[in-house]
């Protein structure tokens, strides 16, 4: 798969990450190689402890001390930055600020008018214009997460990283939010990398699904999802891809080799 | 679990019972409250010479004597109120305050009197030359002590009241620091502070009690004790008198003997002892003086209810004990 080297393309080469625990060393990530092009939506799926969150945090610049290279638009990633926005599993909204206060929190250096415009636009984008003056404790989980997404997008990041953003939501809200994030992606066309443990979610959303195995965390395979959106979770192709991924996971436990159909 | 719980309860109960307030003396115990000042020299002499035990034995008793030391009269009052003392040595003023507050005591004898033993002092370099210069100044006393009364009388003579000065309540120890540091302008105190500070060159006496207040200190006993152990009480008075006589006849030796009890070096103590009359018998003019104190305190609002001094002073006991 050809990779275009543009400002928003992410290239990861030979990434290794070790954690030093009291009991000894743990290899969190081993030899990760990944390329993501501008405007793609990538899902990373894996079981707990496979290092997918660590991988995302390294891309975000929140973890360091790794070997190998991580480059965004040809430049090495040294730490957190405005070019990479992040949405966490918890909304992490500041309870003492209003919704618009929270969204504005990431904006610095603009005039007041500018700031208000940007905040208004992004609240519209996530469909929460009516709740601008509300406080986080007055919102439902899904709404709060939408505010977090708006906050992450105000600085027009090249990359939006999502760390199991819908993990804490109930099944129905989750599906709603998946549609939401797709809609936002289609409008903004920001490159998105989402980590999830929900296989269905991964397939529903991603252009490609990166399947990771655990202990040590490696990229098992990268499956393209050449299905047009919106995707039907019960369509034949969807189900086939799901079967492939399932097989990988349960092959890990029962059989040492993987099968591909 | 149950055993632990039971042990805990038992320990708690023991601790509580152990610490019940001791409001009563054991049958053969005398609890004496003193102050470590030369005003009560005879009792310390008697203590060293064991005359208390001697006189008590003559009266057919052999109680254990428990000594407690206090810094001034008011704390002694507290201790009596809590039922922790039988005999006490304090000034006439705090004795009256205690009685007015309902402490059940009587005066059984005079500890001493000495108009020169209490005084109003000022820093040596002070420009207060006479009591009328005290107007508007900061003066410290132990509130409720007989020196407090002295200050009021001194002011009265100049037509002033305590409202004309800034009256501060301090302990004698703090008064010593404060006057040396210049934090207060004057103080009304009693020995040995006067001689101590004078000998250091820190203060001079503005006026002492001569002609103003006799400086009567009394010996009190709880009515309970005097009632139950009348003979023992008389024996104590006799022992006190022996101490007084010893000081009169052998002042140098006495000073050496009790210098440690009153925190004054023997040579200074010798000078101070000369200021006192230690005879414990109560005379008519003494009673008048005490009545004057009571009247002052009532008018000054230091006591709220009057005290009948004639009922407060037990002259019979003193007479019966044969003291002079």
């Amino acid at each position: 798969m050809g990779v275009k080297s543009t400002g928003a393309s992410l290239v990861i080469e030979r990434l290794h990450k070790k954690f030093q625990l009291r009991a000894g060393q743990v290899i969190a990530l081993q030899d990760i190689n990944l390329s993501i092009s501008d405007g793609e939506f990538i899902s990373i799926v894996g079981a707990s402890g496979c290092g997918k969150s660590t991988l995302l945090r390294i891309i975000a610049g929140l973890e360091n001390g790794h070997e190998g290279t991580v480059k965004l638009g040809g430049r090495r990633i040294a730490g957190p930055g405005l070019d990479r926005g992040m949405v966490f599993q918890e909304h992490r909204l500041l309870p003492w600020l209003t919704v618009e206060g929270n969204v504005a929190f990431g904006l610095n250096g603009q005039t007041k008018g500018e700031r208000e415009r940007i905040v208004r636009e992004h609240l519209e984008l996530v469909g929460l214009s009516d709740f601008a003056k509300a406080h986080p404790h007055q919102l439902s989980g899904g709404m709060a997460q939408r505010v977090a997404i708006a906050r992450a997008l105000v600085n027009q990041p090249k990359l939006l990283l999502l760390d199991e953003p819908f993990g804490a939501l109930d099944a129905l809200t989750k599906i709603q939010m998946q549609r939401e994030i797709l809609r936002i992606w289609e409008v903004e066309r920001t490159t998105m990398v989402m980590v999830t443990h929900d296989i269905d979610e991964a397939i529903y959303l991603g252009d490609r699904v990166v399947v990771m195995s655990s202990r040590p965390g490696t990229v098992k395979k990268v499956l393209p999802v050449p299905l047009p959106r919106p995707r039907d979770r019960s369509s034949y192709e969807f189900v086939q891809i799901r079967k492939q991924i399932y097989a990988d996971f349960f092959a890990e436990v029962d059989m040492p080799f993987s099968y591909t159909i | 679990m149950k055993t632990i719980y039971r042990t805990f309860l038992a320990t708690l109960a023991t601790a509580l019972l152990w610490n019940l307030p001791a409001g009563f003396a054991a049958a053969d115990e005398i609890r004496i409250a003193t102050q470590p000042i030369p005003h009560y020299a005879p009792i310390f002499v008697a203590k060293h010479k064991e005359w208390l035990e001697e006189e008590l034995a003559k009266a057919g008793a052999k109680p254990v004597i428990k000594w407690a030391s206090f810094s001034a009269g008011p704390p002694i009052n507290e201790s009596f109120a809590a039922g922790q003392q039988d005999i006490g040595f304090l000034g006439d003023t705090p004795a009256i305050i205690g009685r007015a507050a309902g402490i059940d005591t009587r005066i059984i004898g005079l500890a001493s009197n000495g108009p020169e033993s209490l005084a109003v002092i000022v820093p040596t370099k002070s420009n207060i030359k006479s009591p009328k210069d005290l107007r508007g100044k900061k003066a410290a006393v132990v509130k409720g002590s007989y020196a407090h009364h002295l200050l009021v009388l001194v002011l009265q003579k100049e037509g002033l009241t305590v409202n004309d000065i800034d009256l501060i309540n301090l302990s004698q120890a703090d008064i010593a620091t404060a006057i040396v540091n210049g934090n207060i302008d004057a103080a009304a105190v009693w020995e040995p502070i006067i001689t101590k500070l004078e000998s250091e060159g820190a203060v001079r006496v503005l006026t002492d009690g001569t002609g103003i207040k006799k400086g009567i200190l009394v010996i009190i006993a709880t009515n309970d004790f005097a009632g139950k152990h009348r003979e023992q009480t008389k024996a104590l008075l006799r022992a006190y008198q022996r101490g007084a006589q010893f000081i009169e006849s052998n002042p140098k030796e006495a000073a050496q003997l009790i210098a440690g009890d009153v925190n004054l070096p023997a040579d200074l103590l010798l000078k101070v002892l000369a200021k006192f009359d230690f005879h414990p018998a109560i005379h008519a003019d003494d009673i008048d003086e005490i009545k004057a104190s009571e009247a002052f305190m009532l008018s000054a609002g230091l006591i709220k209810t009057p005290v009948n001094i004639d009922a407060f002073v037990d002259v019979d006991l003193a007479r019966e004990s044969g003291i002079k």
Partner: protein
Amino acid sequence: MVRDNNPRLEKIKYLFQYTGLSVIILVTWQTLFYLGFIKPIILPPPTRIIATFWELLESGAMARHIGISVLRVLEGFGIAAVLGLGLGIAIGLSRTLDRMTDLIIQVTKPIPPLAWIPLAILWFGIGEQSKVYIIFLGAFFPIIINTIAGIRQTDHKFVEVARVLEVPSGKFISQMVIPGALPAIMTGIRVGLMVAWICVVAAELIAASSGIGYLIMDARQLSQSDVVLVGMITIGVIGKLMDSMIKRLEKRLIGWRVSFAGD
């Protein structure tokens, strides 16, 4: 069972529950006195206490003493708040500063304000300053320690958000660290004010000629237990009022907290 059906009854029931114990104590107390079981010097009866309180109130003495004590407490507490908050925030934010000051703070903290009195007299004399100093010491440590703790326990999750959004440090401190630390800071303030008020008696031991602490000490010298009790009760009541006021302030400042706790 007649439970929530009758709100009037509920209210009466609550009234009994709130005041019942106090009423029983007062009645027992007075009765024991009438029966001669308690000597008035040890524990004056409630009637005497009320009478003495009324006397003091009428003569204006009570108002004067309360006013002076409150003023002293506010002075000492004010200085403690400014220093405690300022230093606390600085130390909370700087690891280096924390390491430098930790030993001194931990060693000085356990010393009770009372123990400082002799030094206070030596340094500041017997005027207002020594009293305000003692009160300041009492309030300072709760405030600074809680402030440092509040700053320290800034949620890491929020800190990551600030990093990812490249929030400048000024905004980070003022919009993230300090609001997050406010619950702990308010606790420090509340405790500090309480301790300051408790210290007023200790402070007024230093040669005061007015104030509630002085009133109590003075009455003690004169064996006036009724005045002592009036003074004590007044201290308690005013302490309670101050605490209620701070609680109201707390609600205003961190109203979001109640709901955050349920997040």
